[in-house]
């Protein structure tokens, strides 16, 4: 159950060379939104765009293909995409909203749809929620520390950041590569990630991530009825090249392993919060 409910799991990548040129992996999120925008399924999407500071993401509303393309790629820092979920239906005026987010942001979204305490007229305007796999996230200052201090690289010279194969990778514009063992990154993770029990965005319509598939491809879980419908249309429109998930290495086995690792570790931490902090005191448990 660590992989959540899904109707199908596929290895996929975008068929659009322009999207793939600067995408993190298979360009799934950008391609899905570009297709959905084209087909009128969404009016626009909340994405993690690029702010003025290098590799600092900022939630943005993309209503054109150009704006979507500008937001390609992963930025390993917190992008509070949910902060725009009401505004996108107001000053941006969208009736059919796309949103991309980490597993916790998908949880926030679904809670917000079921308990719209401060989200008036938002719940029924969510047309497509795309989740991304996530082990943990860093505050921007943590990324700064990792890249500039540990990696001895100026952030403005970095062309791509990546986490994979057990390492944190820094690629520079001039072709240098710096790798940091994940061990040094752990202390910069934000604490809120350590109570998270979701690795593969179980509550998204469609969730995707690099783990499980070869370089340049992504693993895709199609989860909800809405997601299934949109995925089928996107395939019919030729937006994606796909392979059966069991035909690729390392496949779902690795996804399951990592998901298990994360959930087990964090479950343990949650339990320790109830007993190991203070005497007869417990830290608050967010899950009821």
């Amino acid at each position, binding site marked *: 159950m660590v992989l959540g*409910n899904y109707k199908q799991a596929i290895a996929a990548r975008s068929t659009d060379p322009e999207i793939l040129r600067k995408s993190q992996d298979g360009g799934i999120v950008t391609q899905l939104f570009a297709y959905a925008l084209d087909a009128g399924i969404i009016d626009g999407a909340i994405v993690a765009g690029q702010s003025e500071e290098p590799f*600092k993401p900022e*939630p943005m509303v993309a209503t054109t293909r150009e704006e979507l393309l500008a937001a390609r790629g992963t930025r390993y*820092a*917190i*992008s*509070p*995409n*949910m*902060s*725009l*979920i*009401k*505004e996108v239906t107001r000053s941006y005026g969208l009736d059919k909203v796309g949103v991309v*987010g*980490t597993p*916790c*942001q998908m*949880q*926030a979204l*679904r*809670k*917000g*749809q*079921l*308990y*719209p*305490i*401060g*989200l*008036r*007229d938002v*719940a*029924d305007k969510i047309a497509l929620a795309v989740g991304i796999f996530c082990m943990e*996230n860093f*505050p*921007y*200052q943590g990324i700064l520390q990792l890249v500039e201090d540990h990696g001895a690289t100026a952030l403005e010279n970095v062309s791509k950041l990546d986490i994979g194969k057990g390492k944190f990778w820094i690629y520079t514009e001039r072709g240098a590569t710096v790798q940091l063992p994940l061990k040094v990154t752990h202390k910069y993770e*934000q*604490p*809120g*990630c*350590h*109570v*998270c*029990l979701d690795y593969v965005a*179980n*509550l998204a319509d469609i969730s995707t991530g690099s783990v499980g598939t070869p370089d340049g491809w992504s693993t895709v879980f199609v989860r*909800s*009825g809405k997601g299934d419908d949109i995925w089928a249309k996107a395939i019919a429109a030729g937006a994606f090249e796909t392979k059966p998930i069991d035909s690729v290495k390392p496949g779902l086995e690795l996804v399951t392993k990592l998901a298990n690792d994360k959930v087990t570790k964090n479950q343990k931490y949650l339990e320790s919060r109830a007993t190991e902090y203070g005497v007869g005191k417990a*830290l*608050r448990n*967010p*899950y*009821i």
Partner: protein
Amino acid sequence: MGILESLKTLLFGKHDVGGGKQDEKPGSAKAEKPADVSIGKKASIIKEPKEEKPVADKITVGHVHMSGCTGCLVSFADNYEGLLTILDKYADLVYCLTLADVRHIPEMDVALVEGSVCISDHLSVEEIIETRKNAKIVVALGGCACYGNITRFCRGGQQNQPQHESYLPIGDLIDVDVYIPGCAPTPQQIRNVCVMAYLLLKGNDEQKALAGAYLTPLMNLAKAGTQACGCDIMTQGINQGLCMGCGSCAAACPVRAITMQYGKPQIERDMCIKCGACYAQCPRSFFSFDVVNQYEGIMEAIDAAMEP
């Protein structure tokens, strides 16, 4: 019957609304002392608006107005035709400012209480106590009833009741069962609670279990106390090591007191009106996998329930 027609009927009863002498200029008739009205034979001014009840098993709901701005009631009404569906199928409105012609708080299944209680006004105190006595479930509707909200800032001196300076959330005077925080609470949240309250009281076992699970976090909020502030995001979220920077609080804040700075909420505490929306919206304030994992089914069920 069109929506407009049914609203008219709802508001004015089934009699001629537009009739009467409209052309008469004000002041043209000579003022006369009205004759005494004999109440002995119970002459009815309004022709009894007898409602036909297609569903016998409705719950009874009342809206109790304490010191609030009526924004919560407007928000309830902002379900538009959904309000009519609720009143047609699930709930009889037995007590409500403007919408129901009833003077004293009757017995009812669910009381939606809007506003805080002015303890300088004995009638308000009596009414909130009466509400608790007469209602099976008391729902604090909106920030004022739950947490005091903007009335927390009252210091008296306002016209025309300058002596009214002490306002308390209803939970400081009576036991409250369910909170719906927010200023104003959203039409969809009120709708969801109405449908779930109906299922809890009238549904089958499965529906009762679901409604119970859905309402539990809102009941827990009611148990947790009568104080709320943007600070809760810090004290109960960030301080407890639970914030992951999703931005829900910033989206929920009705006065835009919360912005996200470097991925974490920055709260302008002087702007905060203490409505409790930010903390209740936070996915790390309460989150039930049992409920949220079924989001697709629940949302479909609510949509189906709201079919006219």
